[in-house]
């Protein structure tokens, strides 16, 4: 009977893992819809292709060797054939693999409307197979960074990945945007910035709600266990705080933009929600609900200033605000952890953030430059005018609607 109970725990934890993983997989749809809504209609089909393609690539490369790089156990999932100890190894892989895809999805939005599709896919193969798994190994898998220092020893903690997933994705995106340059027509000769409105706000909103929902899996699953009172409580608290932080992000962003610009800019409310979610991701287990709301709210404020500053001051052209949402706020998420978690140190968080950023930004930059040399990364100016849908996919996203 003892055994039956153990089996039940095993089953419950596995089931929990799978449900959380399914929710994270669902985030792929969220990123697709968000990005498809924030670009112009002529680049919509291409970004959809990019998103479904990168998800497929991430699942495959991580299966072939990424998981091995990160957690060991052999390529092609050799090592997970055994059943596992506390839960099914297969469920662990399933949960982990959707994280890789999330990191990669962050990149696609930032480089939208001007990047060559297959260069992006080439980047995805390396990013999901090596760049991400390496830093994943140093953080969640606890390995020493090139044998030099161990982040967890320095007091670093990133519960569900504000840094490891989100800031990492943003770092790769930043390198890509620098190599690519801004979209044609984005900046005037005098340096002023033009708005390029996204074509479909309901899609962008849907995407945000999907991400919000999926995030329960992202953070909730990162407790990694459910079948005891303690872990069940932890998961519940993580759900509650994840939701609270997103709500805080929306409210803060909405009030701020209303004060700044007099209008309740929907896109900023959406980015505020995501910022709240990214902010809480590094430590959704320790804050109270009020603290979580505030951590999210700070994220919501930050994201508005960051998007505006990156755009107008640094001329970083990021159509969906991915670098601000996942990068700037991801860093804030890491730094907020010590505020409510005494086991975590500021210095450790800085060390971790620095390690992740330097590694991902550096390797991504090299990779983008190599791709630029080999196959080119940017479509031609005329193609950009025509739109990448026709150029890359040979079809239009909305062929019947007049533009």
């Amino acid at each position, binding site marked *: 009977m003892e055994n039956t109970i153990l089996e039940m725990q095993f089953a419950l934890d596995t089931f929990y893992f799978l449900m959380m993983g399914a929710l994270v997989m669902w985030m792929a749809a969220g990123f697709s819809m968000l990005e498809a809504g924030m670009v112009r209609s002529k680049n919509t089909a291409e970004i959809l292709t990019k998103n479904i393609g990168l998800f497929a690539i991430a699942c495959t490369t991580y299966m072939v060797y990424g998981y091995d790089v990160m957690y060991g156990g052999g390529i092609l999932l050799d090592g997970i054939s055994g059943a596992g100890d506390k839960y099914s190894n297969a469920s662990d892989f399933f949960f982990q693999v959707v994280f890789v895809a999330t990191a990669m999805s962050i990149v696609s939005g930032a480089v939208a409307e001007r990047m060559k599709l297959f260069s992006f896919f080439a980047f995805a193969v390396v990013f999901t197979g090596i760049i991400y798994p390496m830093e994943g190994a140093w953080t969640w898998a606890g390995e020493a960074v090139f044998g030099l220092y161990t982040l967890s020893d320095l007091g670093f903690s990133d519960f569900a990945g504000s840094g490891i997933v989100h800031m990492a994705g943003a770092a790769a995106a930043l390198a890509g945007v620098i190599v690519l340059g801004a979209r044609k027509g984005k900046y005037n000769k005098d340096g*002023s*910035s*033009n*708005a*390029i*409105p996204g074509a479909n706000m309901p899609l962008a909103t849907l995407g945000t709600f999907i991400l919000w929902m999926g995030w329960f899996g992202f953070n909730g699953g990162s407790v990694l266990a459910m079948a005891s009172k303690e872990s069940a409580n932890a998961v519940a608290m993580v759900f509650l705080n994840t939701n609270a932080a997103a709500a805080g992000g929306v409210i803060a962003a909405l009030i701020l933009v209303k004060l*700044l*610009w007099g*209008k309740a*800019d929907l*896109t*900023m409310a959406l980015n505020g929600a995501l910022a709240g979610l990214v902010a809480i991701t590094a430590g959704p287990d320790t804050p109270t609900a009020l603290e979580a709301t505030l951590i999210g709210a700070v994220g919501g404020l930050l994201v*508005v200033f960051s*998007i*505006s500053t990156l*755009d*107008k001051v640094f001329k970083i052209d990021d159509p969906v*605000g991915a670098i601000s949402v996942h990068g700037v706020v991801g860093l804030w998420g890491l730094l907020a952890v010590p505020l409510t978690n005494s086991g975590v140190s500021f210095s450790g968080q800085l060390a971790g953030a620095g390690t992740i950023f330097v590694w991902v930004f550096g390797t991504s930059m090299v990779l983008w430059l190599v791709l630029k040399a080999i196959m080119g990364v940017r479509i031609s100016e005329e193609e950009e005018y025509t739109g990448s849908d026709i150029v890359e996919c040979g079809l239009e996203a909305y062929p019947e609607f007049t533009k």
Partner: protein
Amino acid sequence: MKMVTAIIKPFKLDDVREALSEIGVSGITATEVKGFGRQKGHTELYRGAEYSVDFLPKVKLEIAIVADQVDSVVEAISSAAKSDGGKIGDGKIFITSLEQVVRIRTGETGSVAL
């Protein structure tokens, strides 16, 4: 025959159509257009960046009529399309000469085809 082409504000369309019906105009062709004129566009903020909307939505009406209806048609359009007191951007009416009309259904030509 004359072709009267009027550029009006979109939300005046129903009023103008009614005014024209009342004076016996039997046919109108309407097109959605964008106008640029004295009425200036506006500047919007999207994610903190500005963009200017130079062209404003207007409706173009084309009405083929016999020459002696011109005055009453111009009058009907003008009074129906004018915002209270007249506002910049209320629009314009252009009159050109129309040499011939053919009704496809019957092959009729000239003013009976209108």
